[in-house]
C-alpha cells in the first residue's frame, strides 16, 4: 500500500471538484436549475399504489448512464443511480473511469481534457439503503409448492439468477463504483437511513481533511418507488395514499414541507456523488472547486425506532458539532437546507430546532426544503439535495420551498420565492440537515 503521510494533526481544507447527480429534476446542473427556475414539478401519481404520489427519475437510460457494463444487472435501481452519479462526478473532477478496457466513458459537461486515474488510496464512502423491490425477485422465490415434482419450490426456484442476492447486499453498488472508477483505498458503506448520504459526504471530507486519504468519493443512490417500497411506506403510515387518481394536479400539491396542511412525505428517487480533494492541491493544478465542505456532525436520538425526538435536542447537537468542526457559530449561516420531509412530526421537531438555534439568538438564515422539488430520495436525499443546491448556486439562486402557503413558523425566514444566493465576500455558508429512521441525525456545513 502506498503511504500517504500527512501528519494527523494537520487539517486540510476540503473542496468538491466533481459532482454528479441523477434526479427527478434532471441529470445535469443546468437541467436541475432550469427545472426549479421554471417551476417544474416532477411529482406524479404512483402507478404501483393508487392514491399515492411519487417523484420518479425520468429518462434514465441505464446502459447509457452506466456505460455498457455486463454486471449492471446485479445492481438495484438505487445502485444504478449511484453508479451513474459516481461516473459523472469522477468525470467532472477529471478522473478516468475506464478500468475495463474498451469501456465507453460517460459524457458530462465538465470532462477534463486528459483524465487521470484516481490517486492510489482514494477513499470511497457510500450511502446504502435497503432494496425494497420484493416484487422483482421474491414472487418467484416464494412460489407456493404446487405438488408438481418438476417445479422446484421456494428459494430453489430456477427463475432466480444465481447471484440475485447481489441486488440486496448493501455494498454491491459501492463495489461497482470501486470497479468502474478504479477506487481502491478505504471503503465504507453507511446504512444510517435517510441521514446516510449527508454523512457520507461528511465522512469522505473528514478523510481528506485529516490526511487519511488523498481524495475521496462520496456517493448515494436510492429508489423506493417499486411496489414493495411504496407498500412498505404505506403500511407504516408515512405517506399519503388518499389522492384522487382522477385529479391530475393532486401530486403537485402533495409534498408541502413546513406547511400547516402537510400530510406526509412523497417518495422520490435519485443518486448523487461528489469528489472531495484537498483545496491546496486542487488550486495548485489550476482546477476550480465547486464548493468547500467545512464540517459535519452526526448524533443519535436514542429515542424511538421511527419517530424523531420531539424537541430535536440530539439533532441540535449534530448541528452544533458540524458548526464546531467548521469553526463557525450559528450567526455565520446564510441558509439552511432543512430535512423538511412534509411529515407532521419531522417538520414540527425541525422547526423547534431551527427556532432555538437561530431565531432565539437573533439570526435569520434563509430556510429552504429541497424535498419539495425532488421528493424524499431516502438514503440518497442528502447527496441529491446538495447536488441540487450546487446547481442552483451555480445559477445564482436559492430554491424556494414549494407549496408553502401557510408556514408553521413565523419566526423562520422560509424561502417562498427563489432569491439570490445569500452570502458575503467570504462565500455563502449553508447548513444541510437530514434525519433518518432510528433517530439518525446528520448536519453538514458547506461554503458555496
Amino acid at each position, binding site marked *: 500500500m502506498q503511504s500517504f503521510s500527512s501528519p494527523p494533526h494537520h487539517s486540510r481544507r476540503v473542496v468538491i471538484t466533481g459532482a454528479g447527480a441523477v434526479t427527478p429534476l434532471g441529470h445535469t446542473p443546468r437541467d436541475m436549475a432550469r427545472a426549479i427556475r421554471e417551476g417544474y414539478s416532477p411529482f406524479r401519481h404512483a402507478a404501483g399504489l393508487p392514491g399515492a404520489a411519487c417523484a420518479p427519475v425520468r429518462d434514465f437510460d441505464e446502459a447509457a448512464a452506466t456505460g*455498457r*457494463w*455486463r*454486471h449492471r444487472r446485479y445492481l438495484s435501481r438505487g445502485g444504478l443511480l449511484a453508479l451513474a452519479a459516481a461516473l459523472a462526478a469522477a468525470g467532472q473532477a477529471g478522473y478516468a473511469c475506464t478500468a475495463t478496457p474498451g469501456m465507453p466513458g460517460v459524457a458530462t459537461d465538465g470532462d477534463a481534457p486528459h483524465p487521470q486515474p484516481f490517486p492510489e488510496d482514494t477513499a470511497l464512502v457510500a450511502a446504502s439503503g435497503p432494496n425494497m423491490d420484493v416484487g422483482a425477485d421474491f414472487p418467484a422465490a416464494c412460489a407456493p409448492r404446487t405438488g408438481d415434482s*418438476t*417445479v422446484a419450490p421456494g428459494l430453489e426456484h*430456477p*427463475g*432466480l*439468477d*444465481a*447471484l440475485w442476492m447481489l441486488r440486496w447486499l448493501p455494498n454491491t453498488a459501492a463495489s461497482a463504483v470501486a470497479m468502474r472508477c478504479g477506487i481502491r483505498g478505504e471503503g465504507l458503506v453507511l446504512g444510517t437511513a435517510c441521514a446516510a448520504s449527508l454523512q457520507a459526504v461528511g465522512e469522505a471530507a473528514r478523510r481528506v481533511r485529516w490526511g487519511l486519504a488523498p481524495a475521496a468519493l462520496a456517493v448515494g443512490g436510492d429508489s423506493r418507488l417499486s411496489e414493495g417500497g411504496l407498500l412498505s411506506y404505506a403500511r407504516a403510515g408515512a405517506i399519503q395514499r388518499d389522492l384522487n387518481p382522477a385529479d391530475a394536479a393532486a401530486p403537485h400539491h402533495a409534498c408541502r414541507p413546513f406547511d400547516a396542511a402537510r400530510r406526509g412525505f412523497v417518495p422520490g428517487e435519485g443518486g448523487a456523488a461528489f469528489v472531495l480533494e484537498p483545496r491546496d492541491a486542487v488550486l495548485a493544478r489550476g482546477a476550480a472547486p465547486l464548493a468547500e465542505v467545512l464540517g459535519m456532525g452526526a448524533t443519535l436520538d436514542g429515542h424511538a425506532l421511527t419517530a424523531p425526538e420531539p424537541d430535536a435536542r440530539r439533532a441540535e447537537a449534530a448541528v452544533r458539532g458540524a458548526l464546531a468542526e467548521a469553526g463557525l457559530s450559528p450567526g455565520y449561516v446564510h441558509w439552511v437546507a432543512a430535512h423538511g420531509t412534509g411529515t407532521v412530526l419531522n417538520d414540527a421537531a425541525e422547526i423547534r430546532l431551527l427556532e432555538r438555534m437561530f431565531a432565539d439568538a437573533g439570526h435569520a438564515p434563509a430556510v429552504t426544503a429541497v424535498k419539495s422539488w425532488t421528493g424524499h430520495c431516502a438514503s440518497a436525499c442528502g447527496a441529491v439535495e446538495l447536488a441540487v443546491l450546487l446547481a442552483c448556486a451555480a445559477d445564482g439562486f436559492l430554491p424556494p420551498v414549494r407549496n408553502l402557503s401557510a408556514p408553521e413558523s413565523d419566526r423562520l425566514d422560509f424561502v417562498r420565492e427563489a432569491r439570490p444566493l445569500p452570502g458575503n465576500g467570504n462565500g455563502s455558508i449553508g447548513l444541510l440537515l437530514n434525519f433518518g429512521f432510528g433517530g439518525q441525525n446528520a448536519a453538514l456545513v458547506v461554503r458555496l
Partner: protein
Amino acid sequence: MPEHIRHEPHDIAAAIATLVAPIFDVDAATLSPSTRLMADLPCESIDLLEIGAGLNRRFAIPVRDAAAFLTDLRIHVLEAERTGEAPEARLAREYPHLSAARVAEVLAAVRVPGAPPVLTIGDVAAYVAWSLARHAGTSA
C-alpha cells in the same frame, strides 16, 4: 417451466448461445459450439454460476458445475499422473458427456503450459445432451 425444445446437439448449442449472450452483452449470432467461454469471452466464476442457473432453468436438468464446466480438469490430469492411471480413462470417467476425440483434444490442450481453459459452448452442450438423455432414461 422450460420451453419445449428438440434435443439435437446443434439446437442445444444454439439455445446455450442464446442463454450466454446476454451475460456477456454480445450478439448470440457471434457464438458457436467452438466458442471458448474463458478464452473467447470474458467468462469468470461469477458467470459460470449464472450459466449453471440458466441451464437448470432452460433445460430442467440438474447441473453439476465440476462436470459441466470442466472446472477440475487439471486436477484430474494431475491425479491420473500421480496414480499411474491413463489420463484419457480418468477424463472419460469424469466427463462421460465428452467424446473420446474431444477428450484427446482437451488433454492435449491442458498440457500446453499457460494455455487458457479449453471449455467450449460445444462442451457444455454435450453435457446438457448427456444429462437430458440420462434423465429421459431414468424416467422412462
